[in-house]
């Protein structure tokens, strides 16, 4: 991660101005005092954990470590153990499916809603605002509510499906069958992510100049053609941002899974996030937990680069 932060363009204009004043060194130090506390905090709460995790992944932690303070270095043992563990490869695969499924659903529905709400009609603003609620409620709480709704025997969804004659005799085992649970988790996460996608994409749509649409309609372009040739290309920067941010928050998922399924049944909903938690905080093997955490960081880092590329235009303007 740290290698990405290195490009540090020196900004000259204001610097030169202050150098002309008296006691420039002291003034320069005073100015840094504004930034220093936040920098120190970020070094402690973001920088230190990143470095520490790398070190920890080469150390042998046991439940006894917190009494003795001993965590001897053990080379690549943690890495070998994790990569040989089927749970890790399964979790990697689940995380990929969960992330891809969630993003696809959130983005498609979010975009459709954003386009819909761009029409002018009564209550549009009100409905858009209230739709944010699922995104603002703590994720654990949403997951707990969904856990009740998706309950096989007493859940409202199966009751409704039954009444409509759509469910099998015993109801759909939304959370209790290894084959269905991950899909259920994806559906819940889509529900949570729709408002965020909708609001950002809606904002992006408002930035597209109206006359482009007028020109297109004068040229006799139909709705679908207009959407493909004007809306999508003009929206591209916003789409990149929304997808990358969505990826970042989805790939590390933990709250939702723990409250909805606890990783089960039969580890069918374990993700990289829940495996890290399980290894470190339940088995107290912080070394192996750190390995999975590092893999998570590596994946995030790749997408961080994409994000910064997408944001570069903003930085050019010194925004």
């Amino acid at each position, binding site marked *: 991660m740290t290698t*990405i932060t290195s*490009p540090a363009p*020196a*900004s*000259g204009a204001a*610097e030169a101005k202050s150098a002309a004043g008296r006691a420039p060194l002291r003034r320069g130090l005073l100015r840094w005092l*504004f*930034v220093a*506390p*936040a920098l120190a*905090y*970020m070094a402690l*709460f973001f920088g230190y954990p990143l470095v*520490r*995790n790398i070190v*920890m992944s080469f150390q042998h932690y046991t439940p006894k470590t917190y009494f003795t303070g001993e965590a001897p270095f053990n080379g690549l043992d943690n890495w070998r153990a994790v990569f040989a563990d089927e749970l890790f490869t399964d979790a990697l695969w689940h995380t990929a499916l969960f992330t891809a499924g969630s993003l696809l659903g959130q983005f498609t529905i979010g975009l459709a*809603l954003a*386009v*819909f*709400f761009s*029409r002018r*009609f009564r*209550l*549009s603003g009100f*409905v858009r*605002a209230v*739709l944010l*609620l*699922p995104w*603002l409620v*703590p*994720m*654990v*709480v949403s997951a707990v*509510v*969904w856990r*009740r*709704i998706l309950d096989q025997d*007493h859940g*409202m969804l199966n*009751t409704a499906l039954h009444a409509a004659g759509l469910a099998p005799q015993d109801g759909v085992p939304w959370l209790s069958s290894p084959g269905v649970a991950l899909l259920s988790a994806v559906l819940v996460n889509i529900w949570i992510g729709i408002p965020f996608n909708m609001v*950002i994409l809606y904002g992006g749509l408002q930035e*597209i100049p109206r006359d482009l649409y007028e020109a297109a*309609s004068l040229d006799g372009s139909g*709705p*679908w053609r207009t959407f493909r040739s004007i809306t999508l290309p003009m929206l591209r920067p916003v789409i990149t*941002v929304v997808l990358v*941010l969505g990826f*970042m928050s989805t*790939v590390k998922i*933990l709250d939702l899974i723990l*409250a909805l399924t606890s990783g089960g049944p039969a580890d069918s909903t374990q993700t990289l996030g829940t495996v890290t938690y399980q290894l*470190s905080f339940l088995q107290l093997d912080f070394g192996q937990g750190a390995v999975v955490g590092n893999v*998570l960081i590596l994946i*995030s880092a790749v997408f*961080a680069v994409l994000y*910064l590329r997408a*944001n570069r235009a903003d*930085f050019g303007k010194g*925004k």
Partner: protein
Amino acid sequence: MKRPTSLLRVRPVWNTAAALLILAVLLFPVYWMLNAALQPESSIAATEWFPVSPSLKNFDTAISTQGGSLLTSFVVALGAVVVCLALAAPAAYGLAQFGLRGGQGIVFATLITQMVPGIVIANALYSAYAQLDLVNSYLGLILADASLGLPFAVVLLRAFMVSIPSEVVEAAMVDGANRFTAFVRIVLPMSRNAMITAGLFTFLFAWSDFMFALTLNTTDDVKPITLGIYQFVGAHVSDWGAVMATAVLSAVPAAILLVVAQKYIAAGITGGSVK
């Protein structure tokens, strides 16, 4: 696909009807939460579709068992807001106005910190906290939760403070104020709206935090509501009515903020890269 033009073929009334239908579908789980919370007997059997004979009994149970956790969440979230703004506001100002060497690099780094998975931070932080005696402490959780809002607050406040004309501050300094007093008396009041937005989001992030609450606490000394409801589901899985009432109570801040501070929330989501 529909296009966002004013050339509507569909009557606006139908749009409103469709919007309300979308709202009903998407907010159904929220309704269900409220509905189940109002039905004491919903714990045992299937829940009725409507709370025909509503009762607050579940809320009594929820408050008597989870009231302390709600208070803890409130204190921790408020503390996180204070820490976050105290760190972010001066830093954002410095980065916006001083043209510091490497300032751009710092902003880059701030953006990147948003991408560090919380579980990775918790993994390393736990052992540090254990040594510093910060596990199971309010201070420890407040400091950790402040990290959820800090990058966002720095980016958002900086974006606003760039537009403050430096002459305004320089004029105050000519009158004898030093740079810090000028910052407190002039810049902060001017940035009021951006500060409110950053504070609101930090509050919501900290209120919603589950990861740090789960990993940095080993006893029940500091138990925010997210952790409370998680353990509640584990222990009282039969008492779903009370669980739902707890869920309603823990969703209240989000609902209040949505009504009272909608302007700021919209500004926050579009103005910065949230979550």
